[in-house]
């Protein structure tokens, strides 16, 4: 019996009277990609922020189980939580500027995570950063350039490199390609897809775009008004949606 990497039970978060998410329960296993789909106001962003530690939920349990060590995420001290977030989790923001230091070079941005976990050899840090720049297809000659000189797509790829370099156990992605041009989106999605496959990453990805979920996620949940309407394998939910709302969503997507 494999223990889930992440187990969420009855998670709820409200903003005064407005429901963010309500009684969410789900499990995530190592190497799986879970997609969370919903329209604006569905609660998907609230959910991912609670799971990644950016928001404090009102009720519920979040249990991580990594390398046989269990972490009760909502019941540990702040310092343990911050340490856990730093070493085990990663968060790719929709706007890459939220996830990068704009006054620090590309190499410094990628290397920061290494330095924060104790790397103290400049040469090693630099060569690892270079390796990752290759992986995300940014010309390695730009390692000393400031992010302000990068395009949107490059910034997002830089953010991905920065997050993945320490092989985090769970990666959260909030609309990682929202706001990018279509051709740029395709490239970033390809990159995410190949890195997930190559490194057997465990990912939770939030998107309003069903095509993104179809491409990247093994499993998905559909959210509306703060609750889970339907969940299951991505291909099953998209090809044989059981709930009315899901059917509406699926049928609304234009096919090129």
């Amino acid at each position: 019996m494999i223990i889930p990497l992440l187990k969420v039970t009855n998670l709820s978060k409200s903003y005064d009277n407005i429901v963010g998410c309500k009684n969410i329960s789900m499990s995530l296993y190592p190497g799986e990609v879970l997609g969370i789909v919903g329209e604006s106001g569905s609660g998907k962003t609230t959910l991912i922020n609670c799971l990644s530690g950016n928001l404090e939920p009102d009720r519920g349990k979040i249990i991580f189980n990594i390398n046989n060590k269990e972490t009760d995420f909502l019941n540990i001290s702040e310092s343990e939580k911050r340490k856990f977030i730093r070493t085990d989790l990663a968060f790719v923001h929709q706007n890459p500027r939220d996830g990068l230091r704009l006054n620090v070079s590309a190499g410094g941005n990628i290397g920061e995570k290494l330095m924060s976990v104790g790397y103290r050899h400049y040469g090693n840090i630099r060569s690892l950063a270079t390796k990752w720049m290759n992986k995300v297809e940014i010309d390695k000659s730009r390692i000393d350039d400031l992010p302000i000189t990068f395009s949107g797509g490059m910034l997002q790829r830089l953010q991905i490199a920065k997050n993945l370099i320490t092989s985090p156990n769970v990666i959260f992605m909030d609309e990682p390609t929202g706001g990018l041009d279509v051709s740029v989106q395709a490239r970033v999605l390809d990159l995410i897809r190949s890195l997930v496959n190559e490194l057997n990453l465990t990912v939770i990805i939030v998107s309003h775009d069903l095509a993104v979920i179809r491409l990247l996620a093994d499993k998905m949940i559909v959210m509306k008004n703060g609750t889970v309407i339907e969940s299951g394998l991505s291909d099953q939910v998209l090809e044989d949606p059981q709930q009315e709302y899901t059917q509406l969503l699926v049928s609304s997507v234009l096919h090129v």
Partner: protein
Amino acid sequence: MRKTNNVIKIKDFKVDKGLPFDQEYNFAYLDENTKKMIRRAIIKALCIPGYQVPFASREMPMPYGWGTGGVQVTASCLTKRDTLKIIDQGADDTTNAVSIRNFFKKTSNIKTTEITEKATLIQTRHRIPETPLKKKQIFVYQVPIPEPLAFLEPKVSETIKMHSLSEYGAMHVKLYEDISKNGHIETAYAYPVKTNDRYIMDPSPIPKFDNPKMNNSPAIQLFGAGREQRIYAIPPYTKVKSLDFEDYPFDPFKAEHACDICGSKNTYLDEIIVDDAGNKSFICSDTDFCNKRKNK
């Protein structure tokens, strides 16, 4: 001490009235309650080397940026038996040093000196004397920006967390940037250090050449930032290590010159333009040390 009815009384000790000073002010300008508050902060700071203790900085008769923090720390530590030395960039005779020294003379009529070994309390701006400090000397630094993480993280609430959780990875990012831009760690002054293997500290804008002097010093080192309202400290014989990388170790660089006045090769030098033709001269920044050596 006499023990009376389970209450311990401290025997009266002889109060040395000292030389008469301007009676409009309390001794050394600050009122006693303020001194108490600052001393408490100093004691806390000494107990946690390198940790920034907030204090209620007072309005001083000099503007922010002119050493108000250092002056408040000095004023709180000063007793009538002290001998005070004030230096600014190593020199006793610059405007800043002169005016602070006059300030203390006026408000306490304390004995002053230019000779490092004779001083019991030294206030400095941006240098540590070449003459090694001794046990029981108090050394006060003037600090403009106490927060070493300020350039990376503007939010105080966040830097407080970073310090308390030892989240110092970002500090090395700065050094990394230096090396990537300049081939070496360019930071020439205010070079960050780790104190007692715990807190990362800004040593004030002293040249990195001076950093090694802070390590394992027999003196008490106090740091005062008036505008930012912080005090921090290094108690005697504390480990102070400058940050670096394994393959780019800390290098206390100095100019490859000897002093043109005293000939010393091991001291920090000021580069001075001596005439309109732009001719340069290198002389010791520490005037007291230079004079002593010249006269030997």
